[in-house]
C-alpha cells in the first residue's frame, strides 16, 4: 500500500542506512547540547592559538551567518534562478523572524554564476575567500554543481546544492557537497514506474531528448519499469536541435499503453501540439515530467491537448484538496497563489516543482548549525557531520513539500513524489509515492572520506 504524506503519519523509525549517531533535525537533543558545548570549547582553543581568528571569534557571536547563494541569475537557468531567489529570500526572512541561527541573523550573499560551471567554481571561491561565507548554497543546474563542487571541496566550504542531479549520490563529488533538501532524478524517475505500470499501462514508449538529461530518464525508468513487470516497447531519442516532431510519432508502436515524455527547450510546446494533432481523440495515456512545462501556464491556449495527461511534480503547483497548513504557509511566504502563480501577476507561474528545495535546505542548514553549535568557519566539518547524522525530516513548516529521509552516507535526501493529472487545465493530485518507492542501493559512503 502506498503511503501519502497527507493522510499517513511518516514512520520516523524508518531509515535507509541505519546509523547510531543520527540526529532528528527537528528536535533539540541532549546530543546537540553536548555538541554545542564541544564546539564552543573547540572554538576557544582554536581562537587562542590563531590571533586573527581569535579577533573574529570575539565579535562573531553578533555577526550574521553568511550564506553564499550561488544563483542562476543569467544564462539558461535564469527563470529557475528568479524563483530560487524568491524562495531563498522568503526562507531567510522566516528564519530571521524566528530568531536566526544560534541567535545570529542570516545574511544572503548572492552571486550570479551565469549558469556556467567555470564561473560557478569562481563564485564558490569568492564566497569562501572574499565574502567570508560560512557555506555555499543553492545551485540547480547539474553542470554548475559538477563544475563547482571540486572547488568547494578544496576550499573546505560546505556546499549545499538544490539540483536534483544524481551526481551527489552517485559518488562523483566530495564530502563537502550535500543535497539534503531535494530528491535526485534517479529516485524521482524510478518512483514513477509503479504508478505508470499499475494505473496507466504496462507497455511504455519513451520519448526523450538525445543527450545526458534524456538518457538518465531512459536508463532509470527502463530499469524500474522492467523491475515492475512492465516493458519499454520503444525508446525514441529526439536530437536536441529538432523543432518539429511529426516524423517521430509514427515510430510509436501501436501496442503502446503509455507515452513517457521528457522534452525540454523552446520546441516543447510544439511537441505537445503536434502530438495532439497526431493522435486526435484516440491517444494512449501520456505521462511527462513537469520540467517540460515548469513555469508555463497550463491554461494558455495551445495546451488543450494536455488535458487528461499526467505529470510528475516535485511539489504540486496547484494547491490540492488536502493542502497542508505547511504548504499554505510556504506559498504565502514565497508570494505564490493557489494556482502556483505569483501574487503580483496571476500569469507568472512559479517553478513550483523545484524551488521548495531552497526553503527546505536552508532549514536543514539551520538545524545542522544549531545541532553542531556552529560558531564560525572552524566548525564547518562539524556542520557537515551534523547534517550527515540527520535521518527523518517530518512534514512540517520547515519541510512543506513532505517528509524526507536523509541518507548521510550518500549526502542525498529521499522523499515523496507527486503525480498529478491535468483536469480542467489544472494539475490535480492523482498519486503520491511512498518514500520507499524512491530508494535505491547506496553508491557511495562520503562519511569515510576525511575532511
Amino acid at each position: 500500500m502506498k503511503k501519502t504524506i497527507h493522510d499517513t503519519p511518516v514512520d520516523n523509525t524508518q531509515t535507509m542506512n541505519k546509523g547510531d549517531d543520527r540526529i532528528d533535525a527537528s528536535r533539540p537533543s541532549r546530543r546537540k547540547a553536548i555538541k554545542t558545548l564541544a564546539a564552543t570549547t573547540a572554538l576557544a582553543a582554536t581562537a587562542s592559538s590563531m590571533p586573527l581568528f581569535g579577533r573574529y571569534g570575539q565579535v562573531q557571536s553578533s555577526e550574521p551567518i553568511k550564506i553564499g547563494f550561488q544563483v542562476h541569475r543569467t544564462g539558461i537557468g535564469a527563470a529557475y534562478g528568479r524563483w530560487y531567489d524568491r524562495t531563498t529570500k522568503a526562507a531567510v526572512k522566516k528564519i530571521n523572524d524566528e530568531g536566526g541561527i544560534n541567535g545570529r541573523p542570516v545574511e544572503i550573499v548572492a552571486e550570479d554564476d551565469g549558469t556556467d560551471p567555470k564561473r560557478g567554481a569562481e563564485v564558490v571561491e569568492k564566497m569562501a575567500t572574499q565574502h567570508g561565507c560560512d557555506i555555499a548554497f543553492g545551485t540547480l543546474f547539474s553542470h554548475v554543481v559538477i563544475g563547482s563542487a571540486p572547488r568547494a571541496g578544496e576550499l573546505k566550504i560546505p556546499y549545499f546544492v538544490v539540483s536534483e542531479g544524481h551526481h551527489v549520490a552517485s559518488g562523483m563529488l566530495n564530502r563537502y557537497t550535500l543535497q539534503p533538501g531535494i530528491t535526485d532524478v534517479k529516485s524521482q524517475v524510478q518512483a514513477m514506474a509503479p504508478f505508470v505500470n499499475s494505473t496507466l499501462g504496462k507497455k511504455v514508449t519513451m520519448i526523450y531528448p538525445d543527450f545526458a538529461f534524456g538518457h538518465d530518464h531512459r536508463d532509470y525508468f527502463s530499469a524500474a519499469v522492467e523491475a515492475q513487470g512492465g516493458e519499454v516497447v520503444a525508446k525514441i531519442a529526439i536530437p536536441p536541435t529538432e523543432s518539429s516532431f511529426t516524423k517521430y510519432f509514427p515510430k510509436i508502436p501501436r501496442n503502446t499503453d503509455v507515452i513517457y515524455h521528457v522534452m525540454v527547450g523552446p520546441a516543447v510546446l510544439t511537441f505537445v501540439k503536434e502530438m495532439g494533432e497526431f493522435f486526435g481523440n484516440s491517444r494512449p495515456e501520456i505521462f511527462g515530467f513537469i520540467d517540460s512545462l515548469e513555469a508555463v501556464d497550463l491554461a494558455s491556449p495551445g495546451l488543450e491537448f494536455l488535458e487528461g495527461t499526467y505529470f510528475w511534480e516535485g511539489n504540486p503547483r496547484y494547491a490540492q484538496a488536502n493542502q497542508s497548513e505547511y504548504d499554505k504557509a510556504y506559498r504565502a511566504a514565497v508570494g505564490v497563489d493557489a494556482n502556483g502563480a505569483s501574487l503580483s501577476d496571476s500569469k507568472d507561474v512559479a517553478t513550483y516543482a523545484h524551488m521548495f528545495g531552497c526553503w527546505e535546505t536552508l532549514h536543514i542548514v539551520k538545524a545542522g548549525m544549531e545541532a553542531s553549535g556552529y560558531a564560525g568557519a572552524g566548525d564547518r566539518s562539524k556542520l557537515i557531520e551534523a547534517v550527515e547524522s540527520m535521518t527523518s525530516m517530518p512534514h512540517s513548516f520547515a519541510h512543506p513539500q513532505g517528509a524526507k529521509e536523509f541518507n548521510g552516507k550518500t549526502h542525498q535526501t529521499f522523499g515523496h513524489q507527486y503525480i498529478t493529472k491535468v483536469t480542467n487545465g489544472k494539475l490535480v493530485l492523482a498519486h503520491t509515492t511512498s518514500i520507499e518507492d524512491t530508494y535505491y542501493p547506496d553508491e557511495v559512503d562520503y562519511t569515510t572520506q576525511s575532511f
Partner: protein
Amino acid sequence: MGITTAWPNAAAAHATGQSFVALLPTGPYMAVGVATVALSIMLLWFLPQRSASALLPHRNIGRVAAAPALRNLSSLLMFLALCGGIAAGLNGTRDPLENGLVLGFWVAFWMAAPMVQGYLFDLWGWLSPWRWAAQPLGTLAARPVLPLPRHVGVWPAVALLLGFSAFTLADPAPDDPARLAAVISAYMIVTFAGMTLFGPRRWLRQAEFFSVLMAQFGRLSVLARRGARVRAGWPGWQLGNGVAFLPGIPVFTLVLLGTGSFDGFNETFVWLDLIGVNPLAFPGRSAVVVPVILGLAGANLLLVGLFLVMIVTGDRLVGGGLPANRLLALFAPTILPIALAYHMAHYLPSLLVDGQYVLVALNDPLGTGANLLGLADYYVTTGFFNHRETMRVIWLSQAAVIVFGHVIAVILAHAAAVQLYGNVSRAFRAGLPLAVFMVLYTWLGLWLLAAPKGG
C-alpha cells in the same frame, strides 16, 4: 531543464516565450514583413521622383532651448552618478539584478538610452558623463599634447566599439558588479586621459565610442535641434540632408548592425549547432569565448564585405565608376535605422523584465527600506512570456520595429541613390542590389526573432 534569459545580451532568449513563439504562425508573419519592405521598394520606383525631405517630411515646432549650463550640470551629475555606481559595483550587493551599477549601466543606459536617442531626442546631450569636462579640459590644455588628425576619423571608436561588443557578447561575466566596475573605471580613465592628451572635442568626436554611437543614432530621432529651433519629422528625416562625414563612420555604422545581428544569431540553435554546442545543455559562456569572438569578427567582416559588393555592383550596373569610399560614405548611413531596429527588437523582451528590476531598485535606492515608488511588495514578473497571446503581441512588436526600420532604410537608400545618379530609373537600377540586400536582411531579422534559441 532549460528556461532562458541570457543577460546582458538577453534578447528574446526566454525559452518559455520562445516556445510560445514556436506556436505562432511566424512563417506567414515573416512573409508579410518581407513583402512590406519589397513593396516599399516598388512604390519608390513607381512614385514620381521626390527628394528625401519630401519622403521624410519634417516641420518646425518652435523654440525649445535649454541653457548649455543646464546640460553641463546634468552631465556632471551623471558623472557623479557613474562614480557612485562604480562604488556600488565594487562594494554593493553582488546580485546583478539588484546592483545599481549593473542595472544602471546595462539596463537603463545600454538597453534603453539608445532607443530614446534613436527614436525620440538627443538624450545623450544630457546623459554624457564627459561633456561637463570638455570645457575645463580644453582650457587647461589649450593645445592638445598629441594630435588626433581628422583623417584618422572615428577608427579609434570603431576599435573601441568592437572591444565593447566582445565584452558584451563573449566575456563570461559582464554583469558581475565588480568586473563591470573595473571595466567602466578603466574606460573612464582612458576617456579622461584621451580628452586631456588629444583634446576633449576631438576625443569625444572620434574615439569615445558611446558619443559616436549616440551621435549616429541621434540622426534618426524624431526631434532635433536646428539652430535655436526644434524640428520634428519622420524617423530618419535628418539623414535626408546628408550627414557630416568622418572617415570610419560607414564602418562604424556597419559594425553596429553586424554586432546587433550577431548578438541575435549567437543564441540560435543554428549557431550553437555550428559551434558544436547542445542548445538544450548550454555549457556556459566561458565555454564559448573563442567561437563567439570569432563569430563576432566574422559577422562584421561578412557584413562590411557584402555591403561593399552590393553598392559597388549597383554602381557598376549603371556605369557609375565611383570609388568604393564615396559609395560607402553615402550609403552606409542608410542602414542606421536597421541597426537601431535590431537594438530595439533585440532588447525589448529583456527590457520588459529587467526594467522592473530597475524600478524595484529605484524604489529603495540606498537599501534603507524606503518605499519611494510603492513597490515594496512587488514581485518582478515574467508572466507575459508564459502565454501565447502576450507573446504574440511582443513578437509582432519586435517584428514591426524590424520591418519599419528596413522601410526607412529603403527610403534613405533610394534618396541617396537619386542624389547620386540623377534620376529615378538609374537610381533604381543602381540601388537594386542594395534593395535585394535589405529585403534579405528583413528576412534575417524576422528569422532571428522566430528561430529556436538556447544558450
